[in-house]
């Protein structure tokens, strides 16, 4: 089959099966997976959560969780068969992995340089001094500025992107011939994401290192990988050259994945109604809004924000953080406005201010002319605007009370605030809402942990629209969902907005998603709105340098033209 010229594969997985013990017995996490990676190749593994991508990676590294059992199959690395039940000394020399959450993978109480020295000395007989020199060198190679200074930084002093760079440096310490990157950029800001993936690709080329990039983001994978493996339900459903997969996906699953990937240049068919009539008085007028956080040494929201936005060096001088800085804008009735920015830019704080979960430090929030910013947040529950302004939260799991059923979650705002309750039986209203958001009535009696991510998102949306609010604030409503579910939820949101003539304030870090839903977009950075305008204009001809950076960082799906060509033919 293989031509003689083809190089010996570096990694060969054959018929690998892994089962994981769960409460419902043994669940097959990986089923008969076979693929190989050639030296120097970059292979992408794409799939939704639970598709078995990470378990496959863990099996290769020999670090499966205790509950997992390898059923059968073999893994060969550089011609040697690997022990499948666990690591043996020297067994996996030349293999390295980096994980999704770099901050959690680093030891929080040791400087990163020290951790790097440990890794270096574990793999080669270096003196402490030699190892320190190599460590600084490696930190430089992963493009960390002032590596000698960063050597002594603790993980909490570094940004998420910097932590991931440090992790990559540790992975490089063993001079790997194959690096597995398991969702290396998930949870990082778009611009950081781009930098990290650029770094991985550059390092792979410099060192002739093969790389397996595991991601749920098809656009990202297709841009960087020469070959793609698509996984679903523990199987590799399709594996081929990237170009081929994008041009002629054989499997229906791959097709649905491609279709669901939001693209920054697609025809935004879900958006309806153009710019609203400018004469209508604004539904919401935000005037010179500010919100400060006093920074304290320990805990709390402020400290977290501080960790994210501070740049090393000037950290200790700040003691008041202006999370939202003199922000002014209007929302017209029926309009959909997007707010994009990185984590720590203040966009979630702005959303919390508008729904009046927190109090502004200065400025006004006028809703239908009334200054609702003057009503203290702790009295907001009984204020008249409470019914009119609702919110869909970022994390559907965390935003549902784990001890309330889906029915109770949806019914709660009606019970508390709805005059509807007296006019009509509550059960009827809740069932109608469930139907509207596409939630099967049978699921209403379930608790959140018995629902899937998409179902929980639907419960969250049903709860938010239960009172027919006129303004719906959506804080990254799809960020934690798989890409196909994300597409469905975005369509649902567009449908609901048209049906109830709601105004959407859509907070997201994902320009492609914003483009799909919003006519107008505002770009936020360090608490300020740096650019705003019609979505088309901002995305195609950004003015502000930061916006340009953001737009450039969208995975440019090299396949776009291909797909368009294919469909044109």
């Amino acid at each position, binding site marked *: 089959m293989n031509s003689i010229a083809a190089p010996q594969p570096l990694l060969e997985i054959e018929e690998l099966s892994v089962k994981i013990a769960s409460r419902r017995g*043994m669940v097959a996490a990986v089923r008969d997976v076979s693929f190989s990676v050639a030296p120097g190749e970059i292979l992408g593994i794409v799939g939704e959560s639970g598709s078995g991508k990470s378990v496959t990676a863990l099996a290769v590294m020999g670090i499966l969780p205790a509950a997992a059992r390898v059923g059968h199959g073999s893994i060969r690395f550089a011609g040697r068969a690997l022990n499948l039940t666990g690591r043996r000394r020297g067994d996996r020399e030349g293999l390295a992995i980096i994980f999704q959450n770099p901050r959690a993978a680093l030891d929080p109480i040791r400087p990163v340089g020290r951790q790097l020295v440990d890794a270096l000395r574990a793999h080669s007989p270096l003196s402490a001094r030699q190892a320190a020199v190599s460590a600084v060198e490696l930190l430089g190679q992963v493009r960390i500025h002032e590596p000698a200074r960063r050597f002594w930084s603790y993980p909490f002093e570094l940004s998420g992107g910097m932590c991931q760079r440090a992790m990559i440096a540790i992975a490089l310490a063993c001079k790997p011939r194959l690096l597995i990157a398991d969702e290396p950029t998930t949870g990082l800001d778009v611009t950081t994401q781009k930098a990290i993936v650029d770094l991985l690709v550059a390092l792979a080329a410099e060192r002739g290192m093969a790389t397996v990039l595991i991601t749920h983001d098809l656009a990202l994978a297709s841009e960087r990988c020469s070959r793609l493996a698509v996984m679903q339900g523990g199987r590799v459903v399709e594996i081929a050259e990237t170009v081929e997969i994008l041009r002629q996906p054989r499997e229906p699953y791959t097709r649905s994945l491609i279709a669901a990937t939001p693209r920054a240049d697609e025809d935004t068919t879900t958006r309806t109604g153009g710019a609203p009539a400018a004469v209508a008085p604004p539904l919401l007028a935000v005037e010179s809004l500010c919100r400060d956080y006093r920074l304290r040494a320990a805990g709390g929201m402020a400290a977290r924000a501080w960790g994210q936005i501070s740049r090393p060096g000037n950290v200790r001088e700040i003691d008041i953080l202006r999370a939202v800085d003199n922000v002014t804008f209007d929302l017209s009735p029926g309009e959909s406005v997007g707010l994009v920015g990185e984590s720590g830019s203040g966009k979630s704080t702005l959303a919390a201010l508008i729904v009046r*979960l927190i109090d502004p430090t200065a400025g006004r929030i006028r809703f239908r002319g009334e200054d609702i910013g003057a009503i203290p947040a702790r009295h907001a529950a009984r204020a008249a605007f409470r019914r009119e302004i609702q*919110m869909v939260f*970022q994390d559907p799991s*965390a*935003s549902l009370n784990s001890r309330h059923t889906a029915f109770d979650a949806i019914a*709660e*705002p009606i019970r*508390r*605030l709805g005059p509807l309750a007296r006019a009509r039986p509550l059960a009827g209203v809740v069932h109608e809402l469930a139907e509207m958001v596409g939630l099967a009535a049978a699921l209403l009696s379930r608790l959140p942990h018995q629902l899937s991510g998409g179902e929980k998102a639907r419960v969250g949306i049903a709860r938010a629209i239960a009172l027919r609010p006129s303004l719906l604030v959506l804080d990254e409503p799809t960020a934690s969902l798989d890409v196909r579910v994300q597409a469905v939820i975005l369509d649902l949101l567009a449908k609901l907005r048209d049906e109830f003539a709601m105004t959407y304030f859509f907070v997201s870090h994902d320009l492609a998603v914003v483009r799909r839903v919003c006519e107008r977009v505002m770009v936020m950075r360090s608490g300020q709105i740096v650019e705003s305008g019609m979505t088309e204009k901002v995305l195609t001809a950004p003015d502000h340098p930061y916006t340009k950076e953001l737009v450039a960082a969208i995975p440019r799906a090299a396949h776009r033209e291909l797909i368009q060509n294919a469909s044109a033919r």
Partner: protein
Amino acid sequence: MDLARSVRSARLPPGSGSLILVAVLALTGVIAPWIAPYDPLATNVAEALQPPSVAHWFGTDAVGRDLFSRVLVATRLDLSIAVVAVALSFVVGATAGTISGYLGGWIDAAIGRVTDTIMAFPLFVLAMGIVAAAGNTVANIIYATAVINIPTYVRVARAEVLVRREAPFVQAARLAGNGPARVLAFHLFPNVAAPLIVQASLNMGYAILNAAGLSFIGLGVRPPAPEWGIMVADGAAYIISGEWWVWLFPGLALTGAVLAFNVAGDGLRDFFDPQRRS
């Protein structure tokens, strides 16, 4: 293999053994007066200090009372004191802790200082002081035991609430029109109850020891009422002279009860911990 696994996975949840033991203890407490072979207060000087026999399983004490009956009947008093004391400290401590964590500010500071003050004393000495000052009654033993346990609940509840105070589900509850009181009672409290219940179970053992300890030094239940602490104190006089059964059996009952509640607490902790359940 799958069959064997499914049989094993159908086992009772972890800690059931100790929970069964706790249930037996509670049942004994309820029915002891009816199953006890003798009147626990009836003296019979003719049969004083008899070693264990068929007629008197645990032997008899200095005034000829049947120790088995006394140990059985004492279960009721010891458990009642512990249950009521723990319930009191749970209610007061959890309420104060939840409010303290949620509202913060001066309320939090005030509650924090009160608990700090209580914790500043050696707890048993504090309990002794309370009983000595307020009078030697069963009610006062209960209050003393409750007071010294309150800080634990305050701290556990406060810490758990602090973690969840800004959680999205709490924010969602506020948006749904819940004022602070409703958020606390219907959203936060049910989510912090599990660690508190575990704490309560672990505390039961401590409360039993505390009540028995007070009685042992003469500050608790008064003779001749059957109570494990007094019985051990009575038996202490006979350790040297060799009548070992007088102190051994009430001591074993005490140890067994404390152990059962502690193990049950560990079991409950595993039961409530989702990591350990899957």
